């Protein structure tokens, strides 16, 4: 019994560490994915029009980009190491399949991203303007490619394809099946849209901060315009795309969808609850209070208002028959709220974007200060949506680490005990909090500045990005 308790503590600690470090890492990833292309747009506009305001915006947001990029790189390394450090059984089991996209990510995209970003930061006076612009395009391409490859790796945990089991290990049989996995392609689209939403929301928020204080209005109008051109369509499309992704997940991981709705019994014409109190356990499956939209869950999960959605209890029984006795339920209440947190935060971003666009079009945006402050506060929303999204994706997969093939509780490193884990988890938490505080301080400081075309020493086109 003691052994069992200890074992579960170890797995819980390892999971807590992976969750903390991944969610933290993913604060910086979407910002890189989304802010990168917007800076590309600024610099491309400068290159085409020669208008200095675009250069000022490139420098201004480029600096914010780099402050965050640093933490993104640093915390990304932790993710690569952690599979082996904390999940050695998992690593041996999936290495043949999962390692390949990870290695390809390094070879094909990290080299591209890091090398060309270095060229961009320091190449202002050394490369021709056209070539210099190209380095940023390539760096952003690298970051998008790396998102694709890491999501291919992750998709194998959600919906394993292109493999066969040999001596209890997953062996790759088709790299094309892996690279074109439906799950991976949907996740990639969803992630890129989420990244663009995040980047554009931050540009809009920073612009609105300047409007609210009545500073640099002219130049930030241009920034806000670009941000809104990206944000309005992308945030709306991502709501649709995300819900469509739900239909794919219903086919591949029905348990995740059932948990995200706390739907205990298989149903047709199932309602979607906007909010519910209670109803999160098999013994009391009926909520004491809820607000429901009839047929909506069926529509979200199957694309038809009368579609059948499988219930948690039914799935649990089916899994017990297939995989042997046990409890195959993920933590229902967490997933229910994670799904709503994601969807509501995402919807609010879209709402802010639409109102912002209308105000901008009527030339009122910079005058409506209260809305500007809303947009400033709204920059937190896409980050929250991303975090909730990952909770939904990864906790909704439990108890599996690889859906249907390997359980999380059996996949951790047997030699890494509570002492090591407690130590590493504390170190990461303390270090990450300190970095977040410093990052926030730096971001505020730089977001508050006036955008300049030259650096502090007056050198033209040598930005404040260098060291």
């Amino acid at each position, binding site marked *: 019994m003691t052994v069992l308790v200890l074992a579960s503590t170890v797995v819980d600690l390892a999971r807590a560490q992976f969750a903390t470090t991944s969610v933290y890492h993913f604060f910086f990833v979407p910002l890189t994915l989304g802010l990168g292309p917007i800076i590309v747009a600024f610099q491309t506009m400068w290159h085409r029009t020669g208008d200095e305001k675009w250069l000022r915006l490139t420098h201004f947001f480029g600096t914010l980009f*780099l*402050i965050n*990029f*640093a*933490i993104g*790189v*640093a*915390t*990304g*390394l*932790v993710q*690569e*190491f952690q*599979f*082996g*450090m904390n999940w*050695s*059984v998992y*690593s041996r089991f*999936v*290495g*043949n399949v*999962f*390692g*390949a996209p*990870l*290695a*390809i*990510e*390094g*070879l*094909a995209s*990290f*080299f*591209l991203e*890091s090398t*060309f970003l*270095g*060229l961009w930061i*320091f190449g202002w006076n*050394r490369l021709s303007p056209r070539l210099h612009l190209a380095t940023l395009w390539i760096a952003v391409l690298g970051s998008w490619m790396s998102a694709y490859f890491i999501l291919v790796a992750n998709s194998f945990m959600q919906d394993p394809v292109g493999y066969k089991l*040999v001596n209890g*290990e997953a*062996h*790759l049989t088709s*790299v094309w099946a892996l690279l074109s996995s439906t799950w991976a392609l949907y996740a990639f689209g969803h992630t890129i849209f989420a990244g663009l939403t995040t980047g554009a929301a931050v540009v809009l928020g920073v612009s609105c901060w300047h409007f609210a204080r009545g500073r640099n209005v002219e130049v930030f109008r241009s920034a806000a315009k670009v941000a809104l051109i990206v944000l309005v369509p992308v945030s709306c499309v991502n709501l649709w795309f995300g819900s469509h992704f739900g239909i794919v997940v219903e086919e591949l991981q029905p348990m995740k969808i059932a948990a995200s709705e706390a739907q205990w019994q298989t149903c047709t014409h199932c309602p979607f609850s906007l909010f519910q109190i209670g109803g999160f356990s098999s013994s009391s499956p009926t909520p004491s209070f809820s607000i429901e939209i009839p047929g909506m869950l069926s529509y979200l999960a199957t694309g038809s208002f009368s579609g059948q959605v499988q219930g948690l209890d039914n799935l649990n029984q089916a899994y017990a028959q297939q995989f042997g006795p046990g409890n195959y339920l993920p933590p229902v209440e967490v997933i229910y709220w994670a799904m709503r947190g994601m969807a509501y935060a995402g919807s609010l971003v879209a709402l802010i974007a639409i109102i912002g666009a209308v105000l901008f079009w009527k030339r009122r945006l910079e005058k409506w200060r209260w809305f500007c402050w809303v947009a400033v506060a709204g920059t937190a929303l896409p980050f929250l949506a991303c975090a909730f999204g990952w909770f939904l994706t990864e906790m909704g997969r439990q108890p599996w680490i690889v859906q249907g093939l390997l359980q999380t509780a059996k996949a951790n*490193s*047997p*030699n*890494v005990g509570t002492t*090591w884990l407690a*130590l*590493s988890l504390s*170190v990461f938490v303390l*270090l990450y909090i300190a*970095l977040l505080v410093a990052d926030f301080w*730096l971001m505020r*400081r730089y977001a508050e500045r006036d955008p300049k075309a030259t650096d502090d020493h007056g050198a033209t086109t040598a930005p404040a990005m*260098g*060291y």
Partner: protein
Amino acid sequence: MNLQNLWFVLVGVLWAGYFLLEGFDFGVGMLLPFLPRNESERTVMFESIGPVWDGNEVWLVVAGGATFAAFPAWYATMFSGFYIALLLVLVCLIVRVVSFEWRSKATDPRWRTFWTWANAVGSFGASLVWGVGLANLLNGVPINASGDFTGTFWDLFRPYTVVAGLAVVLVFAFHGASYLTLKTTGDFLERSMRTARRLSIPAALVAAAFLVWTVVVAVDRNDKSVFPPVLPAALGIAAMLLAVLFAARRRTGWAFAMTGLGAVLIVATLFTSLYPRVMVSSTDFSYSLTVSSTASAHYTLAVMSVVALVCTPLVLLYQGWTYHVFRQRISASPTAT
């Protein structure tokens, strides 16, 4: 050569590339508290590696990823076994990476001093742990029959592995000083050359001791004959001695080439000494992990080989181009702070 052996060589090449490239930017980092006399000289040091350190670090990312993909069981045992050591490396690398972008973003001297030291300590710590860690693959750690590490953090520190850590630190510091002699001007250049000269003899001596000891350990604990490990070891010693000579004669370019070669040959000696094993077990030699017992199946290795074949030349091309673009020396600006 079958694909398993090819990938063993490639993992070695990736580590060698990492030592060659990140070696000098670690070295520059370690010298930060000692070499520069003022803030603008510190800025020169940061700028000298600014455009390239991130690309250099990707060699590590790819070495890790390639080990995961090509030798999952090696990756699993090594990374879970060296848990605390890798935690230290991660902390070192995190504060170091951040220091590059953040140090210049505020002018408060305390802020700048903090990040300067963060970079120095991070560079030193990571170099030390990588030296200790890689030497442990050969020296042997407690590994049981199911391939799991059963030791403690302190098991990683043996006289041989500590010397390995020191050798890597000293070689990197020398390599970094040599790099600075190619990137600086005037008085700072003179001091960089002096530092390179001062570091050259201890670095060469400790590296030579480590290389000789590696061959002994290979014979003693890994059932190898003296040849072939002695070949890269001898070349490594020769490279380091030549580096001492070139540094003394102010042949800075050649000195840098030789310190780089020394760093590469340290990895080459370790990997040659390891083969056909990848991690020696000190519990029972027969529990040692080998290339063939840890490798991925043929199909995975074939896919990875194609990717490596396409990507590696491109990477070398554009990374080489970056070094060409930023080949100029950097002068300390009197106005910059």
